[in-house]
């Protein structure tokens, strides 16, 4: 093969990935307008909540935790697939990850940004959120570090920061590529500043590679620890439906499951819109679908164990929670949505033929997203609606502010994701080139 052939192929690849950065796309303007409008409504409702207090939400005793905590757990779960795909698959040398890892990492960052908002708003007086951190306070009352709630603050802020560092480090060679290929001077300057003077020198690459590997190694236990800590918020409490040792692994599996579903939800339309068919191949999507099935089965196993433990405990409150409140209680519809999305829908992925149908895969990924949000509602709200004393039972009803903030957080997430697609290379260009070069060498028997 002549040297010109791979160069031409690399030029085509660069044009495909960087094209949206230079040229944009017809759908960007309406998409930005729509999600921007939703984001404005989101911040208006947040402002209304901060001014009036969380009495404008539907949560009240006994369901003191409701939409805000459901949304927090949902978004932080979505954020897990990014690190899973980037870090864990990197450590296992799964080269196919390079076509989807940038999508997943960006999704992680924006999901964690949404997640971090909710516990702060739920404080009621968000301007005191800094009390969660051990700042030098004159009142000498310190965060109670034996409670899982300050663990959450440490885990989520660490996860967000490490994910950002990992994302930015991976982006550096591609920012340099954008800087060098930019048609206008102002773009070269702006991307040049963010590329930090990356020159592709081998003296840089050797430290870069080591740092990337070490960050992948550091991010891997974070994937497992963050949702374990989040699950401790529930498992440490005595509430029926929460007090279970299965929670940490069950939450981690659920997080990766929901995150992979969101990756597919975003990847399938973006791949089509940007004509990334050669980069994000059918085989890559098939692998994501298989991972979705496997993690879905882990979640289903978690459901089975939860039900078994409730029955085996012989505790009437636990048995009532699982066998009566959930399937026959006031919000039973969400329980059945959970079963549909997380148990039934992913079973279609056993079939290789159905996995090849991208429309079906997209619908399944949406159903899983809905199912996982419902699961968090089932765990958080239904458990609180039916605690030990039947005299204290009450039903929960969300308000328009709850629904508005939930919808707004999706708009804000999509707005940030659109910004990523428009202004940054959405596929890890240097990694794809490296994987292709390694593949070509392997085929050449060198």
């Amino acid at each position, binding site marked *: 093969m002549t*040297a010109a052939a791979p160069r031409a192929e690399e030029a085509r690849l660069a044009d495909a990935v960087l094209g949206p950065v230079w040229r944009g796309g017809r759908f960007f303007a309406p998409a930005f307008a729509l999600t921007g409008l939703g984001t404005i409504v989101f911040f208006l409702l947040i402002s209304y909540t901060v001014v009036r207090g969380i009495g404008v939400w539907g949560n009240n005793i006994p369901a003191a935790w409701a939409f805000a905590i459901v949304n927090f757990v949902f978004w932080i779960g979505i954020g897990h697939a990014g690190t899973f795909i980037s870090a864990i698959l990197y450590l296992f040398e799964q080269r196919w990850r390079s076509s989807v890892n940038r999508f997943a990492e960006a999704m992680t960052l924006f999901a964690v940004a949404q997640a971090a908002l909710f516990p702060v708003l739920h404080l009621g007086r968000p301007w005191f959120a800094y009390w969660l951190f051990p700042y030098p306070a004159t009142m000498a009352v310190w965060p109670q570090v*034996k409670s899982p709630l300050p663990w959450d603050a440490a885990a989520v802020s660490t996860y967000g920061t490490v994910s950002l560092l990992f994302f930015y480090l991976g982006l550096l060679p591609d920012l340099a590529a954008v800087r060098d290929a930019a048609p206008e001077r102002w773009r070269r300057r702006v991307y040049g500043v963010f590329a930090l003077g990356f020159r592709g020198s081998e003296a840089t690459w050797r430290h870069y590679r080591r740092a990337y590997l070490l960050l992948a190694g550091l991010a891997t236990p974070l994937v497992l620890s963050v949702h374990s800590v989040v699950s401790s918020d529930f498992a440490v409490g005595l509430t029926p439906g929460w007090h279970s040792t299965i929670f940490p692994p069950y939450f981690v599996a659920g997080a990766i499951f929901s995150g992979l579903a969101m990756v597919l939800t975003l990847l399938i339309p973006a791949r089509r819109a940007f004509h990334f068919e050669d980069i994000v191949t059918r085989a890559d999507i098939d692998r994501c679908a298989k991972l979705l099935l496997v993690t879905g089965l882990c979640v289903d196993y978690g459901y089975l164990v939860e039900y078994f433990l409730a029955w085996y405990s012989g505790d009437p409150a636990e048995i009532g929670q699982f066998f009566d409140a959930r399937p026959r209680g006031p919000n039973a519809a969400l329980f059945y949505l959970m079963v549909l999305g997380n148990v039934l829908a992913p079973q279609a992925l056993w079939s290789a033929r159905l996995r090849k149908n991208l429309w079906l895969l997209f619908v399944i990924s949406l159903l899983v997203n809905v199912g996982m949000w419902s699961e968090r509602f089932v765990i958080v709200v239904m458990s609180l609606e039916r605690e030990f004393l039947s005299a204290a039972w009450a039903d929960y009803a969300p308000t328009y502010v709850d629904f508005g903030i939930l919808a707004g957080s999706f708009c804000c997430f999509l707005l940030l994701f659109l910004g990523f697609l428009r202004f940054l290379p959405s596929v890890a260009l240097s990694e794809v080139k490296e994987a292709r070069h390694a593949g070509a060498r392997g085929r050449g028997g060198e």
Partner: protein
Amino acid sequence: MTELLLAEFDGPEALARAVRAFGGARIPGLDAHTPYSTEVVRDALGLPESRLSPWVFGGGVIGAAGAYALEWFLVAHLYPLNVGGRPPHFPLGFVPIAFEMGVLLAAFAGFFGSLAAGRLVKLWDPVFECEGFESASQDGFWLRLGGEALVRAAPDVEGRLRELGARRVQRVEASA
């Protein structure tokens, strides 16, 4: 005035041959610029492994130990409070935050260490003055000869580079 000589090759294999021909990274002033990290060029240069790992480990240990000490100082020493019968010094409860802070500081050490060791955050470099060097982040593989490497390579370094397959050879001023 010092000079740099930059030569562009079509692929990593051609660049690796040129790197070997000029003595590899043992010669000060010789480096390679590539759009992605490649094993062939790495082997040809023969640079030692990065020594970031001990720094990252140190960052992790300092983060974890510092967080644990702070937790003890705050809730076991300054304001001991009995919550749920747990002792003021409760190692199991102190672990999650200590672990998270260990990971955080290790990640900071890895990230900022790689920027410092890789000589990044330097927005201008003489190589940017070279015409066509933009391809180093796209599809071009560049050899950089400066200082002792350039002195040793003379005379007729351009001719040798062209024999080795360089498609473009350029000299730029290295003094900032």
